[in-house]
C-alpha cells in the first residue's frame, strides 16, 4: 500500500482483472486494460503515460462484448491484442485489432482478427510469442494447452498442436520463457509444469501448492517468479526446482499477478485482493538484492 502513495492513478468505470504493457509501442509507455463486469458493457482502455511521466492519458476507449478475464498485447504490433472473455456461462478467446485512426472515429469498434475457438472448458489465458514477429500463440484452458498459428492479414487462426495437462490438473495460468522460445510454463493447483512446444510434452515440473500466476525474469535465465493464493511469492531457479531460492513474505493475502520489469530486473507484484476497482502495486522488490542473497549474482 505504501507503493501507491507516489503512484499515478487512472480510474476505470468498472472493476478490472488484467492489465498488459504494449511492448510493440516503443515510443511510449503504454498499457492496455479491460474491465470485468458481468452485466454492464465492458470496455478496453488504451492508456499512455504522458511524456513527463506524471499523468496517465486515455488514448483509446473501445467497447468489448464480454467481461474480460485476461488480456495480452501483441509484441510486434501495438494495435493487436488478445482477450479471454466470459459471457457468464461460456468462455472465449479472441485476437483483436484496434482500428487505424481510432482517435478520429467517434465510437471506434475493435476489429476481431481471429477467434481461438478450439477450447471446450474455461479458458485461462493467452500467451504471445515473447518477442519479434512470430505468428504463434499459446492459449491455456482448465485442462489443455493449445499452440496456435495466427495469420493476422488473413484474419485466421489455426491450431498447430494441443496437449492435455492430465486429469485433475486445473491450469490457472502460464508464462512463455523469453530466453527459450520453445518453453512455456503453466501453473496449476499443485504444481508448475514446463512444456516443450516442439514436442508438446511436459519436460519438468515444480511441486508447489496453489500457484496462481508466474512470470519469467526477462534479464536472468532460469529465473521464474510465482504468485500464490495464500499470500506467497516465490522465486525459483529452474535448475534447482526442489526449493525456491527466495520466498518473499509481506503479503497478507492472495497475490494474483507477478510481473518482472523488462528493463530493470525488478519484480512488480499486483495484488488484487483487497479491492477490485483498483490495482495495487503492492511492493517492488529489488532483484539485485535477491540475487545477491541467493548467491546467483
Amino acid at each position, binding site marked *: 500500500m505504501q507503493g501507491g502513495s507516489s503512484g499515478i492513478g487512472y480510474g476505470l468505470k468498472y472493476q478490472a482483472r488484467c492489465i498488459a504493457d504494449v511492448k510493440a509501442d516503443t515510443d511510449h509507455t503504454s498499457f492496455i486494460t479491460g474491465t470485468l463486469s*458481468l452485466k454492464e458493457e465492458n470496455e478496453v482502455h488504451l492508456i499512455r503515460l504522458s511524456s513527463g511521466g506524471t499523468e496517465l492519458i486515455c488514448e483509446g476507449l473501445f467497447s468489448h462484448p464480454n467481461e474480460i478475464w485476461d488480456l495480452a498485447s501483441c509484441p510486434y504490433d501495438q494495435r493487436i491484442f488478445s482477450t479471454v472473455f466470459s459471457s457468464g456461462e461460456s468462455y472465449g478467446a479472441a485476437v483483436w485489432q484496434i482500428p487505424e485512426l481510432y482517435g478520429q472515429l467517434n465510437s471506434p469498434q475493435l476489429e476481431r482478427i481471429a477467434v481461438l475457438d478450439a477450447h471446450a472448458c474455461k479458458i485461462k489465458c493467452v500467451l504471445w510469442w515473447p518477442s519479434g514477429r512470430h505468428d504463434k500463440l499459446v492459449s491455456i484452458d482448465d485442462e489443455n494447452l493449445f499452440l496456435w498459428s495466427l495469420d493476422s492479414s488473413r484474419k485466421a487462426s489455426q491450431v498447430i498442436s494441443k496437449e492435455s495437462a492430465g486429469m485433475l490438473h486445473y491450469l490457472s495460468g502460464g508464462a512463455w520463457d523469453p530466453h527459450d522460445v520453445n518453453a512455456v510454463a503453466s501453473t496449476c493447483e499443485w504444481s508448475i509444469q514446463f512444456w516443450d512446444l516442439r514436442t508438446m510434452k511436459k519436460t519438468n515440473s515444480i511441486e508447489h501448492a*496453489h500457484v496462481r500466476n508466474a512470470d519469467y525474469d526477462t534479464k536472468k535465465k532460469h529465473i521464474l517468479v510465482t504468485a500464490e*493464493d*495464500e*499470500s506467497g511469492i516465490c522465486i525459483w531457479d529452474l535448475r534447482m526446482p*526442489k526449493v525456491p531460492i527466495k520466498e518473499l513474505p509481506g503479503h497478507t493475502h492472495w497475490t494474483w499477478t507477478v510481473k518482472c520489469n523488462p528493463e530493470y530486473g525488478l519484480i512488480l507484484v499486483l495484488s488484487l485482493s483487497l*479491492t477490485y476497482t483498483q490495482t495495487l502495486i503492492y511492493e517492488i522488490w529489488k532483484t539485485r538484492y535477491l540475487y545477491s542473497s541467493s548467491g546467483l549474482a
Partner: protein
Amino acid sequence: MAADDIPLDDKAKRMRDLLSSFYAPDPSTASNTSSKYVSLDAINTTSFDADQYMILLAQKSNLEGLLQRHVEMAAEIKNLDTDLQMLVYENYNKFISATETIKRMKNNIVGMEANMEQLLEKIMSVQSRSDGVNTSLFEKREHIEKLHRTRNLLRKVQFIYDLPTRLGKCIKSEAYADAVRFYTGAMPIFEAYGDSSFQDCKRASEEAMSIIIKNLQEKVCLDSESVQVRAEAVVLLKQLNFQVDSLKAKLLETLEKYLITLQLNSRAISTTSLDSDEPSKQGSSSDALPGTAHEAVHAYRLIFPDSEDQLIKLAQDLVTKHFESTQQQIRKQISSSDLVGILRVIWTDVLLMEEVLPEAALSDFSLEAAHVAVKQYVASTFSNLLLNVSDALTKVQTKQKEGAGEEHPLQVSLEGSKKAVIQGSMAILLDFRQLLDDNLGLLVKLRDFIIDWVQEGFQDFFRRLDDQFLSLSGKNHSISEHQGLTEGTQGEKFLAGLVLVLAQLSVFIEQSAIPRITEEIAASFSGGGVRGYENGPAFVPGEICRIFRSAGEKFLHLYINMRTQKISVLLRKRFTTPNWVKHKEPREVHMFVDLFLQELEAIGTEVKQILPQGLHRKHHRTDSNGSTTSSRSNPLRDDKITRSNTQRARSQLLESHLAKLFKQKMEIFTKVEYTQESVVTTVVKLCLKSLHEFVRLQTFNRSGLQQIQLDIQFLRAPLKEIVEDEAAIDFLLDEVIVSAAERCLDPIPLEPPILDKLIQAKLAKTKEQTAVSS
C-alpha cells in the same frame, strides 16, 4: 842523612819510590810542587830536596832554632835507625821460621810415597775380591728372579683355572659383581690364549658367565627385585658388553603393557563405578592407580638412566590414551562429577609422572589434551541437550502414531519440551558449575576456557535449536514433502500441531528460559576473557531472544498458513467443482460447511492445548449466551437478513459499495497474538478471505447465489462463537454475499423464512447426528 848523602843507585831508588808511593798520598803533586813551594814540613814528601831545605831552614831560623832543629833531627834519625833495624830483624826471623818449616816438611814427605803405594795395593785387592763375589752371586740372583716371575705367572694361570669354580661359587652366593670383575679381569687372557691353552677353561667360564648373564637378565626383568638391584644388574650387564638395548626394549615393552593394563583397569573401574553409581568406590580405587604407574616409570628410569626419550613418548602415549578413554566416556554422556573424577585421576597421575619425568612436560601435554576433552565434553553436553529437546518434541508424535494417543498430545509435547529446555539447561549449568568449582589444577587452568565454551555453547545451542525447530517445522521442503508423502493426513495434521508447539516453545524460550539462563551465566560463568574484549561475551542473550522472537512469530504464521491452506483446498474443491451457472435450488446447507467447521474445531482443540486464553474472551461469552438461541434469535442478524431481503439487487450493490468504502478502514488482518482467540480468528479471517476470492472467480445463477447465501448465513453463528473480532467476521461474510451477488446473473436472494427454515433443518440434523453418535 844517608839518603841525602849517598848517591842513590837504581835499586835504592826503586826502593825509595816504592816506599814513597806506599806512604805518600799524592806523589805527583808532591814532586810537582816540591820545586816551587818548599816548606819545612815537606821533609816527609818524596820530592824532598835536602839542599833547598837546608837553605830554607838556614834562612828562616836562627841559630838556636837551628841547633834545636839539629837535635830534633838527630833524635829522629836515631829512632828511624832503630826501627829499621827492628824491621830487618823481624824479617829475618820470619825467613828462618819459613826455612825451618820447609825443612820439616821435606823430612815428613819422605815416607809418604811408600804408604801410598801400600794403600793402592790394598784397595786393588779389595776390588778384586768384591768382583769375585759379584760374579759368583749373579747366576743365583737371575735364577731367583726367573723363579719369581714364573711364580706370578703360575698364580695367574691358577686364577684362570680356578675361574669357572670361582664363578660357580659367585653364582651360588649371587655375588655377581665379583664374578663380573673376575671375568673381565680374565678376559684379556682369554682373548689372547682362549683358542689354544685355556680352551676348556674359557668354555667353562663362558658357560658360567652365560648363566650369570641369564640370571642378571632375569633379575632385571623381575619386578619383585628392588630397583637398585636391577639397576646394578643392568650396569653389570653393560660391563659384560651385553646388548642392553634389546633388554631395554623388552622391558619398555613390558612397562608399556603394564601401563596399558593399568589403564585398562582404571577404565574398567571407572565404567563399573559408573554402572554401579558409587563414586566413593571409584575414588578409592583410582587413588591406588596412579602410584603404580609412576613408580614403574621411575624404576625404569633408574634402571635405564639414558632412556628419557622413550619414556617421554611412553608417558605421552599414556596420557593420550587416558584422554582417549575419557573422550569415549564423554561420548557415553557422563555427568560432570564423573568427568571431574576421571580428570582428577589423570591429573594426579600426570603430576606424579611429572615429578619422575620432568622432561616430558606432561602437564602441558595433558593440559592440551584436557583442553580438547573438556571442550568436547561441553559440546557433547549441548548436543545431548538438543537431542533431548527434539526428542521431547517428537516423542508424542511417535506415540500418537503407535496408537497410544493421549488426550492432549500437544500439551504433553509442549510441557515436555519446555521442561527439557529449562531443566536441561539448568542441569547443564549445574554440571559445568561443578567443573568450575573443582579446584583440580587442570580445571583451574582451563577455567576461562570453560566459561567461554559454556557461553559459546549456549549461543550455539540456541542457534542450532532454532535450526532444529525450522527443520522440524518442515520449512525444509524435502522433509515436509517426504513426511507429507509417507505419513499422509495424520502426519500433516500433527505437523501443524508441532509447528504450533514450536511457536509457543519459542516464546517460552525467549521470555523465560533465556533470562534464567542469562542470570545463571552471569552468576557463575562471567568473565571468560580468553576471547578478548573486542569480541564481547560469547553468549549474547539479546541476539538469541531476537532469533526466537522472530522464530515464534514465524512458526505461528506458519501454523496459521498450514491450517488455512488445508481449508483453502476444501474451499477450492467446493467452488471449482460444480457448474454454478446451472446450479439447482438450494435444498439444504452444503456439507462443506460442516467440513469447514470441523477443521476449525480441530484447530480450536490444538490451540487450546498450547496457547493461553485471551482477555476478551469472557466478555464475548456474556454477550451471546448459548449457541443455538443466538443463531435463531439474534436481533442484529435478523435485521440484516430483512435488510438484504427487502433491498433489490441494484441498490443493494451500490449501497454495499459505499458502505465498504467506509468499512474499508477496518483492519482485517491485525497482528496475530499468542492467544487462542487471536490465532483462531486469524485463521477464520484468512479462510473467509479465500472463500471470498473463490466466489469472485465464479459466475452464479440465482440458485447458486442463494446456495452461497444459505451457507454463509449458516456459518455466521458458529464462527462468531469462536472468534474474538465479530465485526470483522460479519464484514467478511457480508463481503462474500455481496461478491456473489455481483457475480450473479440474476441476483435475487433467498427469502428469509426459507433461509431460516433450511438453517433450522440443518441444525436439527446435526443435533440428531450428534445424538446418534453419542
